[in-house]
């Protein structure tokens, strides 16, 4: 019987630690599929963040480095400068990338580091137990914004993709979502395109993936997907933010 569906070769066959309904697993798979399709697994070096995806080095079936919190773009820059012909990607959450690592991502993008960043935006800190992230929506309740995020005291949610798209060094930036099949297919295309841009040496590439965190949002997986669609997409509009010609 012909196999029509199997685990991507770029993903290791072990159980993941992610919570039920979490979309990290989907995005891991999309990254791995893109690596398989482009046949780049043997020359890819990934950088894992601190956050829920901290164990990503156990899942991606390629050489990996684990970075300090927020520093993945700097680590990736170091790797890429040593191995310019390899494919280097970072996989980072919103706390890692948009809060503690804000300087690193801005300057990696601005220098046009030829790396690809997969940015998981689920509007909350997962690993540490549901604290407010820079991308937490207004009025969203978290462990550290128990009365809801207020702009007067906590500021506004950061639109990372739009911000980075203003930088000359950014070659390709797109925001996608994984709340339904149609959008998952689109997300996969974006990740693949980012890798292609890197292979062509065009500059910095980033795909922001709107994701869910059922555990810390206090919702079922199905409710989470709907909440993402109803609340996140209006504030974080999907689409290509930057595409160097």
């Amino acid at each position, binding site marked *: 019987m012909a196999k029509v569906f199997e685990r991507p070769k770029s993903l290791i066959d072990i159980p993941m630690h992610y919570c039920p309904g979490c979309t990290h697993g989907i995005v891991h798979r999309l990254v791995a599929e893109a690596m398989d399709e482009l046949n780049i697994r043997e020359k890819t070096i990934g950088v894992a963040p601190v956050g829920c995806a901290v164990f990503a080095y156990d899942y991606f079936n390629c050489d990996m480095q684990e*970075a300090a919190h927020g520093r993945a773009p700097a680590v990736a820059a170091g790797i890429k400068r040593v191995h310019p012909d390899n494919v280097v990607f970072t996989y980072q959450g919103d706390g890692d990338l948009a809060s503690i690592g804000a300087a690193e991502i801005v300057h990696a993008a601005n220098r046009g580091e030829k790396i690809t960043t997969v940015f998981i935006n689920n509007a909350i800190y997962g690993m540490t137990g549901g604290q407010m992230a820079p991308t937490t929506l207004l009025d969203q309740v978290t462990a550290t914004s128990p009365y809801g995020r207020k702009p007067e005291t906590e500021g506004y949610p950061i639109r990372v993709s739009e911000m980075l798209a203003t930088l000359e060094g950014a070659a390709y930036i797109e925001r996608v979502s994984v709340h339904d099949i149609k959008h998952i297919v689109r997300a996969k295309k974006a990740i693949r395109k980012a890798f292609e841009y890197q292979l062509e040496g065009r500059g910095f590439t980033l795909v922001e993936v709107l994701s869910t965190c059922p555990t810390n949002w206090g919702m079922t997986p199905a409710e989470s997907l709907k909440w993402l669609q109803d609340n996140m997409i209006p504030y974080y509009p999907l689409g290509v933010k930057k595409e160097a010609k």
Partner: protein
Amino acid sequence: MSKVLMKGNEAIAEAAIQAGCRYFFGYPITPQNEIPAYMAKRLPQAGGTFLQAESEVAAINMVYGAAGAGARVMTSSSSPGISLKQEGISYIAGAELPCLIVNIVRGGPGLGGIQPAQSDYFQSVKGGGHGDYHLVVLAPSTIQEMVDLVQEGFDIADQYRNPVMILGDGMLGQMMEPVEFEERKSRRLPPKDWATTGWKGDRPRAVINSLFINPQVLENHVNKIYRKYQEIKANETMAECCNCEDAEIIVSAYGTTARIVKSAMEMAARKGIKVGLIRPITLWPFPTETFQEWAQRDHVKAFLTVEMSMGQMVEDVTLSIGGKKPSHFYGRTGGMVPNPADILAEIEKVRGGNA
């Protein structure tokens, strides 16, 4: 090769290039700015990469990435910048990555000043960052020695997969002396088969990592690192002993201060006072046994440690001599440099007290 007159900071950079270092990541800070400037000019000519990072934090993490990718790589900074790098240094030690970190020390705490100091001793040899780890800390006292130790430092780093620090100070960085870059024999070094270079299945998958969530696994990992430290202690400890054979007072000092002590020793000799010097060249591992040996000698009446700090290395000297002889301290700090006459006065004071 003939001698050239070089600034300490430039000599460090040239020595690194000659040792095969091809990657430098740094951020501007006085008094080490000649190092990145030299690297920015020379590394591209040598087929390498210089990158001015957005911060010291980013720079040390670029070092992490490059070291993990198998490159011979370095960074340099000065005290406040080294404080910023401590997070990355801890990760580098935890992930067992080889690299060279240069600290051209200036006065502190805080923003402090920009004049030479040795007040980063504790930070360098006792940890600096979090967790159980050590750097190998090398303390040159001349520019020639700085050149030699930079090259040796890269080899030590690669041999043991451990970060190595060159601990200089503003004076060593800024001054000029003749140096010779000799054709040197590199150690026989293990292959970097652990580096992330892209995995084709011909070796185990490379994972550069310092996270071990299971406490037993982490303890095993740390124990492994500490077995390595025992080896480093046994093989790499270095100190210079000078005129100790008949000394009544042994002065201990490292780096620039040791040179000033040597001037004080000449003055003491003219007064008929017998003064010896123990100059630790490796601050970690500390030359404990050297101090123990001399502390047992009857002719040695007391030890005097001189530092450009409020007294940091003196703790290791005191621990090493284990109460066998009195341990005294003299220091200037904040960028003030002790002068030979003051050190001589301290020597005479110590001698008087022990006569």
